[in-house]
C-alpha cells in the first residue's frame, strides 16, 4: 500500500481528464414537506470528466445529499438537464435508472450497506447477479475485485465477522466489480477511526491512479484534500468549483 505521506506530496499526479461523463446544467430540485416547499438545489451546473477525482463539500442543508442522490441516479431533478455518458437521465423511469446504477455507478456508503447475512463474496457478486452475468464469470470478477482491495483471504466472512475498514473494502470491491464509470462515495470514512480512514483514502488514491473516476461527498476538509478538485455547495448553489489548493 502507498503510505499517505507519499501520496500527499510526491505522487500527487493529476491524470489528464478524459471524456465527459456527467453533464449537469441548471438542475433544480424541489421537495414538498407537508405544505412547505424546500429548494434543495436552485440551479446547479457541473461537468465531470473521466479520470477526475472530485470532492463535493458543503455543510448540512447545502443540498449535498440531494446532489449525491442525483449524481447516483437514485433521484431525478425537478428541472434542468442531466446527461450521464451522453444519456439523458433526467426523465428516466425507475428501471432505467436501476440499469444506470447497475452498470455505470459504484456506490460506497458511510454505513457500508452490505447484506448482513451474505458473505463478502456474495455481496460483491450482487451487482453482477442483477446484471445477469453467469455464475462462473461473476465469481471470477468478484474474486478479482476482492483481491484488488486486499481481501482475497476474507471472501467467506460475513460483514459481522469483519472490521469496519474491511467492511468498507468489501463495499468498495462491490462498487468496483462492474467496472463503473464513476465511484460515488458518501462520507466513506465517516464510520471509521482516523487511521482506518486514511487507509481507505489511500485505497481511493490507488483506484484513481488505476484510472477510475471518483466522486467523494464529504463535509471533512481532511478527506476532501485527497481529491484533485473540490466543488463547494451552499444553499443549493455551487459556491466554488476548482482544483484543491
Amino acid at each position, binding site marked *: 500500500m502507498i503510505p499517505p505521506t507519499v501520496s500527499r506530496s510526491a505522487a500527487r499526479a493529476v491524470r489528464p481528464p478524459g471524456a465527459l461523463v456527467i453533464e449537469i446544467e441548471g438542475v433544480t430540485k424541489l421537495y414538498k414537506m407537508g405544505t412547505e416547499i424546500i429548494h434543495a438545489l436552485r440551479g446547479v451546473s457541473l461537468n465531470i470528466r473521466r479520470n477526475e477525482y472530485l470532492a463535493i463539500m458543503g455543510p448540512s442543508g447545502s443540498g449535498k445529499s440531494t446532489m449525491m*442522490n442525483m449524481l*447516483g441516479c*437514485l*433521484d431525478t431533478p425537478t428541472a434542468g438537464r442531466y446527461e450521464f455518458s451522453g444519456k439523458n437521465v433526467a426523465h428516466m423511469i*425507475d*428501471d432505467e435508472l*436501476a*440499469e444506470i*446504477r*447497475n*452498470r455505470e455507478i459504484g*456506490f460506497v*456508503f458511510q454505513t457500508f*450497506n*452490505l*447484506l448482513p*447475512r*451474505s458473505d463478502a463474496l456474495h455481496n460483491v457478486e*450482487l*451487482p453482477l*447477479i*442483477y*446484471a*445477469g452475468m453467469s455464475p462462473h464469470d461473476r465469481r471470477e470478477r468478484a474474486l478479482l475485485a476482492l483481491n484488488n482491495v486486499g481481501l482475497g483471504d476474507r471472501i467467506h466472512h460475513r460483514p459481522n465477522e469483519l472490521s469496519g475498514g474491511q467492511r468498507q473494502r468489501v463495499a468498495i470491491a*462491490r462498487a468496483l466489480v*462492474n467496472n463503473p464509470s464513476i465511484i460515488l462515495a458518501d462520507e466513506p470514512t465517516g464510520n471509521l477511526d482516523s487511521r482506518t480512514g486514511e487507509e481507505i483514502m489511500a485505497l481511493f488514491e490507488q483506484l484513481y491512479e488505476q484510472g477510475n473516476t471518483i466522486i467523494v461527498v464529504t463535509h471533512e476538509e481532511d478527506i476532501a484534500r485527497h481529491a484533485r478538485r473540490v466543488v463547494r455547495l451552499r444553499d443549493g448553489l455551487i459556491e466554488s468549483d476548482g482544483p484543491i489548493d
Partner: protein
Amino acid sequence: MLLNEILRMAFASLGVNKLRSMLTMAGITIGVFSVIGVMTTVSALRGSIESGLSFLGSNIFQFSKYPTGITNDGNSRRKIEARRNVTLAQAQRYQQLMEGVTDVVCLKAPYRDGPLQATYQNRKTEPGLNMIGTNEHFLAANQFTIDIGRNFNPEDIDLGRPITIIGANIVKKLFPSESPLGKLVKLGGRTYTVVGTFAEKGSTFGQSQDDMVIVPITRYLSDYGSANVSINIATEAPDQQHYNEAVDKAITAMRIVRGLKAGDDNDFEIYSNDSLIAAFAKVADAVRAGALVISGIALMAASVGIMNIMLVSVTERTKEIGIRKSIGARRQSILLQFLIEAVVISLAGGVAGIFLGVAAGNGLAVWMKAEIVFPWDWAAIGLIVCTVIGVGAGLYPAIKASRLDPIESLRFE
C-alpha cells in the same frame, strides 16, 4: 436476472426466520391436509366398492321395505315406516311368479335382536355375529362359497330344519381342532346342527364377512318370530342381456304380490350394485363438498397469514431492498424475490399437506381394508391452488417492496 438466483435468495431469507416460515406454512398444510385426506379416503373406498366389494353379485337386484342410504326427508321416512312388511308368504309367492324368469331368488331375514353369540360346549364366539334366515340361494346371491359340508337344499327350507352354515371365524373359535359338521351349536338360545362352513372371505368396510351364520328362513321365522320382520328379496337375472327385462318382470311380480292396484306407487324399494354405488357416491359427494368448504376456509385464513408475514418481512427488510436497488435491482427483480418467497412458503406448506393427507387418508383406507390410492388429480389441484394462494397473498407485499424509494429505504434502520 435468472430465476434460480431469485429462488436461492428466497430460500436463504426463509431460512433466516425458520420458525416464522414454518408456522406460516402450517396454515397451508392444515388446509391442504384436510382436503387431501378426505379425497384420498373417499377415492380409496370408492375404488374398493367399485372393484372388489359387491354387496350383491353381478346381475342381482334386491327388493326391500327400506331404501339404502340416507333419507333426510321426514315425510318420506314416515311413509316408508308405514309400509307393510314383506312377509314370507309374499316372498314365496314372488318366487313362484318369477319361476319362468329365474330360479335364483334369495330371501333374507337378518337378525336384529342385539349382539349374537354362538356357543358349542364350553366354547364361545365374540358377540356380534351376523345371522341371516335365508334359503339355498344365499351363496350365489352373496358370493359365498362352501368350504366343507353342504349348502341348504329346498327340502331344508320347506321343512324348516334346525340346521346352520357357519363362517370361518366361528369355525376357528368353536372348532379349533375338530370337524364342525354334525355338531350342535347354540345361537340365541336355539340349537342348530352344523351342515356346512363358509370359505374364508375377509372383510369389507372393516366388517368381517366371516362372522356370517345362516339358518333356513322358515326355521328362523318360527324360532325368532315373524312379527316385525320384513324379508329382503334378492333376485339374480340369468345374464346381463336379460337384466332389465328381469327387473321389469320382477317389479310386476312384486306389485301383484303386494296387491297394488294400477296407479299405486311401489311400496317397496329396489336396488342393485349400481344403486348402492350411486348411494355411496351421493354420500361421498357430500363429504367431499364439506371437505372443500372447510379446507377453503382454512386456506383463506392461511393466505391472510402469508400476506401478513410478507408485509412484516418487507418492512423489516426495507434497508436490504434499498441496498439492492442502489446497486441496480430493477423493480421486477425485487417483486419476483418477494413473490417467490410467498409462493415457496405456500407450496412447501401444500406439499407437506399433500403428503400428510395421503398418509392419513390411506391409513384410514387400510384400516377399512380398502386399496391404497394416490389422488394425483387432487394433489395437482392442491399444488395449483397453493401457487395461486402464494401469488395472491404475496403480490401486494411484493409490489409494495418493489415500489419502495431507494433513498428512503437506504435511510431505514
